[in-house]
């Protein structure tokens, strides 16, 4: 009992200051419910804490604040500050590679519901293509959409592994590179999913061969890209305005272009190139609109 009391008293200060773990807190509380001596000690420590915390904060005089301010202004005006590096190397290369698995896990958690939905849609699409499109007119389309979605996931993993937390494209704009790349990955995945759903609908109605040729339909598709990027930028603005929509669009197409090209079997198709170029233009328009709206919100 004496030993138990002693060990409890060693923890009483931390118990009063709420610095113990849940288990430790419970153990001390149980002991206190049956030991009057320890309760007395605990009460004294609690009173001491309350007393000490009554020490009022003193104001920092305006004269001192002004002195600090003017000294800082003079310092900032006298010497131009060195620009921060565009890419802060916070992680070593072995650390980056070892974080690959963590990034994959995180992406899996973030994109898992979307991935399941995509696999279900892609399976349905493949079945429909096999049944209704034996000549394979829609197969390259299915491959393109699958490549686009995988490229988005790859973008996200690249952003998480190689993007340093806190890396800034521009210190004044405070554009977070990693968050922007991740946002671009999300926008790409969303767009690919929308295309897939439309692809299924078009294949079921037998119009798939005309999918990318109809100017109105193409315009609507590109508008989806613009809205997706604009929305991601607006969402970021609500969270503190740290993501640039325009940069997100550029990053997405910088990564997804080559990856889709590989997915298409290194085949350069004039139609797809035109589609990529149009999506880039519309993505940039959406991103710039999102940035302008964010800037207005900040102002």
């Amino acid at each position, binding site marked *: 009992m004496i030993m138990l009391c002693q060990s409890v008293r060693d923890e009483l200060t931390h118990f009063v200051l709420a610095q113990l773990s849940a288990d430790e807190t419970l153990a001390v509380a149980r002991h206190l419910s049956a030991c009057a001596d320890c309760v007395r000690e605990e009460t004294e420590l609690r009173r001491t804490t309350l007393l000490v915390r009554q020490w009022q904060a003193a104001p920092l005089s305006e004269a001192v604040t002004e002195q600090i301010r003017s000294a800082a202004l003079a310092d900032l005006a006298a010497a131009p*500050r060195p620009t921060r590096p565009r890419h802060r190397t916070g992680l070593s290369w072995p650390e980056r590679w070892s974080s690959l698995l963590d990034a994959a896990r995180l992406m899996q958690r973030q994109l898992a519901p979307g991935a399941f939905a995509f696999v279900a849609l892609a399976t349905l699409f493949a079945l429909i293509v096999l049944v209704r499109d034996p000549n394979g007119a829609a197969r390259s389309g299915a491959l393109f959409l699958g490549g686009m979605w995988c490229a988005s996931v790859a973008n996200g993993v690249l952003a998480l592994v190689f993007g340093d937390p806190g890396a800034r494209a521009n210190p004044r704009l405070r554009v977070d590179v990693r968050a922007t790349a991740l946002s671009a990955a999300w926008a790409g995945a969303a767009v690919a999913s929308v295309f897939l759903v439309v692809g299924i609908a078009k294949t079921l109605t037998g119009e798939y061969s005309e999918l990318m040729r109809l100017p109105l339909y193409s315009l609507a598709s590109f508008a989806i890209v613009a809205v997706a990027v604009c929305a991601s930028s607006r969402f970021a603005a609500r969270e503190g305005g740290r993501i640039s929509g325009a940069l997100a669009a550029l990053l997405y197409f910088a990564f997804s272009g080559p990856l889709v090209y590989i997915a298409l079997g290194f085949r350069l198709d004039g139609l797809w190139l035109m589609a990529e170029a149009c999506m880039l233009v519309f993505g940039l328009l959406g991103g710039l609109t999102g940035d302008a709206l964010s800037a207005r919100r900040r102002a």
Partner: protein
Amino acid sequence: MNPQLMATDEELMDGVAGGEALAFDQLLERHGKPLFNFFLRQVGNVTEAEDLVQTTFVRILQAAPSFDPAQKFTTWAYRIAHNLCVDFFRRQQHRRAVSLDEPLTDDESLTLGDLMADDAPAPGLRFEDNQLQAAIRRAVTTLPVEQRAVVVLCHFEGRSYPEIAETLDIPVGTVKSRMHNAMRRLRDQLQDWM
């Protein structure tokens, strides 16, 4: 609304590194008073605390380009402040100056520190409150220096043990033992007020 008002401390440091005076101003606005009180509660003297807070902001400004935004600004800034405090006490030891806590009266109710400190209470403050403030100040500022930092960070800055350990660069176990000893000393010192 001014975007600086919404920015985090770490984002403001980014701005300071880029030469933004407004970002520095915002940091000063947010942390000037808490840092001043951090010093005041340890050195017990307004003039010294003001000097130390000025030096802290000079250091913050100088070190801004090398500040890593991945770390927490407050932990970083208070580590600078704590190191300045340690230097201050080391200098004091060398000077062997007259202790501010040396009693000037027989009943030990008045010290040199009480006379020098010009953080006078508001005119409306009652006499007992004034006495209580002096008693708490005496109790805290007579703690050993290393215990004082832990007490100030925990009680007045609301830091958890792991945060204090990170700021002072000591193990959590050391934080616990320092706090345990400090609280017992404070309890004995403030016995008359309980």
